[in-house]
């Protein structure tokens, strides 16, 4: 059975405050951590994610020839006032993909601030499709469950069931 879920190691869901609300292993491949370690990992990643966003390179917008003479005259240097990002058309995001020798981590942050961390084999394809489906199942079986309290740990049997079934049925 677990052979069919090949390529997907585990899933972590982090709420918008950086708290771990879901952790599930689908296939062994990564080392098992204690619950406490996972909590620490979620909190750490939450912070790192915000930093990776803030260290985005800023490209100064080319000013009309800012020669050294103008800056020495006492007029404030024109640069650093205007800059753009490398991909101006794309919203600035934090870490999306992380690659190591042994696994690949994909981070999907919803517009509401929830983060889905999917750990897969580096060779697993269509990770974005998997994450989109997980988001869909989350919206269905977690957010529509009247017994689920927002931002609290996810304990929804229907979510577990459908997630497992979908990953197993994926070819």
């Amino acid at each position: 059975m677990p052979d069919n879920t090949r390529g997907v190691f585990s899933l972590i869901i982090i709420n918008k405050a950086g708290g771990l609300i879901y952790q599930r292993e689908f296939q062994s491949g990564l080392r098992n951590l204690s619950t406490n370690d996972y909590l620490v990992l979620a909190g750490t990643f939450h912070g790192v994610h915000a930093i990776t966003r803030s260290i985005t390179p800023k490209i100064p917008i080319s000013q009309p020839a800012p020669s050294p003479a103008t800056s020495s005259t006492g007029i404030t240097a024109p640069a650093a006032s205007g800059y753009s990002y490398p991909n101006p058309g794309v919203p600035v995001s934090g870490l999306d993909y992380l690659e190591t020798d042994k696994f690949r981590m994909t981070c999907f942050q919803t517009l509401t601030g929830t983060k889905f961390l999917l750990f897969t084999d580096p060779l697993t394809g269509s990770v974005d499709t998997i994450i989109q489906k997980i988001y869909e199942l989350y919206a269905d079986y977690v957010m529509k469950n009247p017994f689920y309290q927002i931002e609290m740990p996810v304990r929804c049997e229907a979510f577990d069931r459908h997630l497992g079934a979908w990953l197993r049925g994926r070819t």
Partner: protein
Amino acid sequence: MVVYSFYIFDRHAECIYKRRWLPRPTSTVGKSRSDTVSGAAPTGLGQTVRSTDDDSKLVFGTVFSLRNMVRKLGGEDDNFVSFTTSQYKLHYYETPTNTKFVMLTDLKSPSMRIALQQIYINLFVEYVVKNPLSPTEHPGGVGVNNELFEESLEQFVVRAL
């Protein structure tokens, strides 16, 4: 491919070298030094130096945390290679002596692991480690920002990449 910045951190978590490349218009052929800003040797061109010091600390914190996370999940023999955001890609290489090489590039760049390794072996070891005038430790970047290393790094990034 565009390289935005390059950092070296020593085993004491100190940033011993940093350098930024400002993207220039593609039409410009001349690769003069005035196009680049060396953070380690802040000169008159202080446009972006202002934030590089803080940036290097943030970069170190990021790679340090991610490296530990990767080791925890993948085991001690796993290596953190790179990460991607919607705007840039960060490449990471760590030597057995715990010196860390970090490079920020655009998204189109392939894996820079070999390149960072080459910088380590062919430039850092050759011009910094083997330099008899360079100290063994580099507090505040002493000994790293020598002319040979900087020039060859410049050439490597501009020509080879």
